[in-house]
């Protein structure tokens, strides 16, 4: 009861509710309305030995595996009321936004001013900014702007002892480690991110889309990598294999082994056209050709205008560096064939690290079972892919020591990254 009272003092009784499924010991969900209230919650919860778990737009704590000290009360802190833009600096193209705002919310605020958060995958932007930053996964990137975390200029966060840190805003600095970016990926274990200063962009003057038919998936990958090497910076890229093309485009049958490439370029008109032409040249060099633009239009509308994408959603996502994209693709297809599973693949989210393969598996007319999925993942890994969500085990001891120092009672998202 003491904890409930303390939390009510911090955020007001209206914003504290018990979690019905977790009563022994009692756990609460609180919804602070400001960074100062977050600090109060953490300070008061910490004083009573309760654990603090951040909750983003998903409404549930992200990846809380288990609390090593399971007998503790837990406080789930939602960022849903931290949904304000604190400052918009149009001269420097910087926005200081609270952590509970989703990327799409922010885009809606920026858009009437002729500004944009940038050409990141819209599905990434459905998360709260705090969530996007706190969890590192591949694919939060744009071939045009780079990795999402590169857009972070500063963060404000609350530490375990209730102190609030604001990293200083400068375009670059040489004053020790990048403490803002160290907080990125720490999943709430080092600090609770309450707001971030992000780089934003003017809305592009032009946006062009194009669709290409290529004689093979390898040729499509080669064309993309070649264009990127020629410094094209597209706003979006997606390669569909023949099976995925049929599913996504109403049974469209590509010639055997062929692949479809959809691309969007953006920026000043001349630059957008230049990037499109670089892609076209690369495609031609690989024996491909321009195909029906309506395919690319549909792809783009699905991404950005909410048109439905054919179900089911991919059940395996893996990441591969540029040189591994092709071998991984073939290894996955070969393994699926061996297992008599149907496999459809598209590749997107190209960046300096590589790209993400989205794999849909079906077997006996239904979703593939876990054994099949695991076999596919194993085959991909053997061909050089990276499964998402692994940890650098060797660094665990260092993270533990870092947390021991900054959060000796282990109240910040315990169980996560542990």
């Amino acid at each position, binding site marked *: 009861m003491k904890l409930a009272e303390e939390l009510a003092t911090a955020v007001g009784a209206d914003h504290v509710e018990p979690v019905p499924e977790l009563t022994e010991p009692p756990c609460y969900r609180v919804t602070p309305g400001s960074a100062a209230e977050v600090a109060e919650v953490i300070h008061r919860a910490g004083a009573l030995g309760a654990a603090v778990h951040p909750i983003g737009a998903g409404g549930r704590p992200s990846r809380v595996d288990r609390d090593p000290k399971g007998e503790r009360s837990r406080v789930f802190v939602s960022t849903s009321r931290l949904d304000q833009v604190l400052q918009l600096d149009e001269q420097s*193209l910087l926005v200081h936004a609270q952590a509970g705002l989703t990327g799409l919310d922010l885009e809606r605020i920026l858009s009437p001013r002729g500004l944009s958060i940038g050409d990141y995958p819209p599905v990434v932007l459905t998360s709260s900014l705090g969530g996007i930053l706190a969890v590192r996964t591949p694919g939060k990137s744009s071939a045009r702007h780079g990795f999402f975390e590169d857009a972070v200029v500063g963060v404000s966060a609350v530490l375990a002892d209730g102190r609030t840190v604001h990293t200083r805003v400068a375009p670059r600095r040489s004053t020790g480690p990048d403490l803002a970016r160290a907080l990125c990926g720490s999943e709430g274990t080092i600090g609770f991110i309450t707001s971030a200063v992000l780089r934003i962009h003017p809305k592009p003057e032009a946006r062009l889309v194009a669709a290409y038919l290529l004689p093979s998936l390898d040729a499509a990958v080669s064309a993309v990598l070649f264009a990127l090497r020629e410094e094209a910076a597209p706003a979006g890229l997606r390669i569909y294999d023949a099976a995925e093309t049929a599913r996504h485009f109403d049974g469209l049958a590509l010639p055997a082994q062929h692949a479809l490439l959809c691309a969007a370029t953006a920026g000043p008109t001349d630059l957008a056209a230049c990037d499109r032409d670089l892609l076209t040249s690369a495609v031609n060099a690989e024996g491909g050709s321009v195909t029906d633009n309506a395919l690319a239009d549909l792809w783009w509308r699905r991404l950005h205008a909410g048109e439905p994408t054919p179900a089911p959603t991919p059940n395996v996502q893996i990441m591969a560096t540029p040189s591994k994209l092709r071998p991984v693709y073939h290894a996955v297809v070969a393994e699926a064939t061996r297992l008599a599973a149907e496999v459809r693949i598209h590749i997107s989210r190209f960046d300096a690290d590589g790209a993400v393969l989205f794999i849909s598996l079906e077997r006996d007319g239904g979703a593939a079972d876990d054994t099949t999925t695991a076999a596919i993942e194993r085959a991909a890994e053997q061909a050089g892919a990276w499964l998402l969500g692994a940890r650098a085990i060797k660094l665990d001891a260092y993270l533990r020591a870092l947390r021991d120092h900054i959060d000796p009672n282990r109240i910040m998202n315990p169980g996560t990254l542990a």
Partner: protein
Amino acid sequence: MRVEPAVDVDRLQRELESIFGARRVSLRSVDLDTYARDMWPRLLIAYRDGIAPAHRPHAVVWPEHVREILAVVRVARDLGLPIIPYGGGSGVCGGAVPIYGGITIDTKRMQQVRSVRSDELVCDVEAGLNGERFERELARRGYTFGHFPSSIYCSTVGGWLATRAAGQLSTKYGKVEDRVAGLTVVTGRGEVIETDGPNRALRGPNWTQLILGSEGTLGIITSARLRVSPAPQLRVFRGFEVDDVQSGVEAIRRVLQKGLRPAVVRLYDELDTLMNSLSGEHEEHKLDTRAPTPPIETGALPAMPPAPRPKEEGFVDRLLALAKGKGLRGSAMKAALGNSELVNKLFGTVAEKIARRGCRLIIGLEGARIRTEVEAALTFAELESAGARDKGEDPGWEWLKHRYHVSYRMSPVFRDGAFVDTMEVASSWERLQDLYHSVRTAIGHHALVMAHFSHAYADGCSIYFTFAGHAPDAASASRLYDAIWRDGLEAATRVGATISHHHGVGLLKAPYMVGEHREAMAIFEAAKASLDPHNIFNPGKMGLRGRS
């Protein structure tokens, strides 16, 4: 002065020689003197006046393998000695000064380019590799790292990473920290760790970004996986003129925010422009020839021309040489350093009048042929629409030709009893004018000051102040020097800028780290406690705790 720990020198020598053999360990006085400092101008003032270094290492070692570094960490821990990582020694903030003695690890024998992956556009390189050799190795294979600091001939890859260095073409290629895919580090726990894979598939905090810029306080970077770019197919350089600093800054901001990425943009303020233009009107000063010239395709290191016999010129003439010109009267310079505040004002006015055409702006683009051509056309059009006047290609190529020279102009000034240093600060565009005026005013109370704007980003820019001062003796010169930095950095902090864009912190800016990071220092301290729990690595630097 700190008391250095009592050390059993014989045991130290024995243990180190058991790791390295006798040849790659030194306890000789001449080596200990050499490794007592880097290129921090405050130490150069003392050095010039024959003052012995306050701090020397107990030993210097030259490892060739990571396992030898691991062994040194064990020795240091057993003997209670610190370790000071040392690259090229070109740092300008005292980061390599062994303030508690200890073992200095010179990384320069670890200098392999292990691989260049053309299919991944990454390379694996050892930390001790000299910058110019690195770039030449890459060029031979058709790639570039895109990092060209003016110290490129005397700095190492590890030094760049440890300080978050910037090269002259950073506007396109990014600062060094933007080009890192992973690090291999020997930590204070005596272990080797690798940060990041070649991707972001691994969960957890960004250890790479936590270690970059830590200046040897968390461990020693032994190798890195760096992103490379194809060597440029096309280079375009031009000079422009703008009415004044403000309109020049605005023109640059418009280019960058349009999404264009020139490799280099430099805007010189009135005085810097004047100094630059004077050099153009005279034959090249002899001192310039001391700088190595970028190599032709010989594969050999560039020849260092012999030092010209110094002419019997006074300090003022040499200061003028520093500023590349001979057009000003000596009396003006003397006055400048005697009553800098007045003369900064006077100079500003005179410079504005003489350089009536305004401020000089240099811009260069390079990269893949087609995109560079398109970007160049858009960039020049944007500059002109912002009021900049095209002065043709010559000023641009002229800058490129002399771009490494500045680092070689310092010693004559020091020889003549003056000192010169640079302060590189940065802020968002919104605060940039405030930053320029407040730091210029703060330094101008004490010294002659000029500035240029370089390293531009879509969200802000760095300002590079050059200042020159003079005092009758070393003690008062040091006092003056400290006052300049104190007032300059406090002014930068007041307007919300960062105190360093790319030179680092070391000892020079350590007292200002709390002002820079405030409560966020707790995260840096936690990283220190994690990676170097026994405070072995470069203790007492960057505002972290020293040794008792």
